């Protein structure tokens, strides 16, 4: 038993220092492409750290969103940046070193070291045991409509946060759409292997997404993880050159984008009128309400993430078509 604990401690130490080292290499590396690859690796190691911290829900979200979709977004932005910037084209390292004045760099470093010391002292002076809100969550879990505490917090106890989060997603896609206008429709590489892989993967991804959505009621999973996997399936399809459907103009896409926030707002209004309190579900119907909200939220999250990825590309394609 003791030997197992020792191995686990050694693993934790290794993981923690790897995370820090990777972040260091990623942020102070002259080659942007290398930084992005290191960022994806960093996200995957973070997912392992979440598992070690007994947070499997966060691990799922980190692996699909933090490492997967953010990585895809960064890669796509880097590819577009390379068409704009001649210095990136030849593949030479971008920036030899930070271009700040030497004294300014040392001031920044000193400030950072002091801040680290202060924060570390604050963290270490916290009591080693604190119940937090776990007792409150556990005592109310039976009336939440689900048996998985994380889903209960996200969709019931703190439903207001999730409502605002859906609004943030909607706002971000609106701002990306209004700023879009890159004259570069990313070139599409197709190959027989990619085609077969996508034919196999797409149905599996949709199935996994639906499974995560359903299982979220009583085990790790839920709307965010399911939505991001749905979004990832869409990104795969777009990357392989499948003409999905016109992402920007189609009213169907717009409907899918607002379905989640709209359902949240409608339910919030309904509960405000009936129960006198925002998003306070009647206990008997809580499970159904949560499932309905989660399903619509999954569709909206998946569509939003896909639309964020496609973002400016559709604009360029449309312009090309109108010229022809």
């Amino acid at each position: 038993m003791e030997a197992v604990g020792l191995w686990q401690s050694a693993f934790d130490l290794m993981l923690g220092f790897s995370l820090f080292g990777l972040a260091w290499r990623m942020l102070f590396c002259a080659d942007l492409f290398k930084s992005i690859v290191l960022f994806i690796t960093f996200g995957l190691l973070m997912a392992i750290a979440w598992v070690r911290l007994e947070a499997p829900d966060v691990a799922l979200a980190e692996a699909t969103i933090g490492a997967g979709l953010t990585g895809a977004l960064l890669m796509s932005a880097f590819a577009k940046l390379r068409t704009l910037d001649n210095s990136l084209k030849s593949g030479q390292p971008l920036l030899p070193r930070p271009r700040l004045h030497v004294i300014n760099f040392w001031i920044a470093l000193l400030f950072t070291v002091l801040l680290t010391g202060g924060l570390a002292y604050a963290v270490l002076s916290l009591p080693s045991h604190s119940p937090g809100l776990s007792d409150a969550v556990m005592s109310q879990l039976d009336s939440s409509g689900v048996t998985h505490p994380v889903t209960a917090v996200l969709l019931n106890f703190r439903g207001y946060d999730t409502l605002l989060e859906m609004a943030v997603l909607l706002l971000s896609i609106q701002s990306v759409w209004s700023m879009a206008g890159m004259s570069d429709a990313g070139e599409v590489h197709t190959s027989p292997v990619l085609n077969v892989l996508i034919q196999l993967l797409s149905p599996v991804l949709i199935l996994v997404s639906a499974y995560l959505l359903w299982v979220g009621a009583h085990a790790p999973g839920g709307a965010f993880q399911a939505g991001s996997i749905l979004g990832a399936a869409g990104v795969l399809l777009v990357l392989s050159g499948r003409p999905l459907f016109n992402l920007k103009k189609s009213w169907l896409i717009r409907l899918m984008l607002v379905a989640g926030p709209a359902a949240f707002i409608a339910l919030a209004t309904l509960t405000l009128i009936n129960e006198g309190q925002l998003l306070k579900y009647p206990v008997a119907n809580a499970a159904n309400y949560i499932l309905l909200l989660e399903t619509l939220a999954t569709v909206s999250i998946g569509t939003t993430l896909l639309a964020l990825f496609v973002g400016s590309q559709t604009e360029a394609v449309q312009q090309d078509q109108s010229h022809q």
Partner: protein
Amino acid sequence: MSMLFFYALIGVGLFTLGLLALVVQPHLLQKILALNVMGSGVFLLLVALGGRSQPVVDVVPQAMVITGIVVAVSATAMALTLMLNLSRSSPGAQLPEDQSADS
């Protein structure tokens, strides 16, 4: 139990490392990466400290972090679009202050 504090300290380290890179590195893509690392540091700190309520782990910080991850990716997408728009008008994808210090 002490491992939780180790992860919390790694979170603090990631946050300040990201802050340093955010201040020091001139390229906007590196600044966006730095912001993401800072976010990861805060998430790690939150969840690690939420684990102090043994034997039952406090799930409220976990739910907050899941929300935070989704908000972070949408903010990143918006920042990347802003960066691309900026680098169309002035090549180099840097802020004007950094470009003048450069010459």
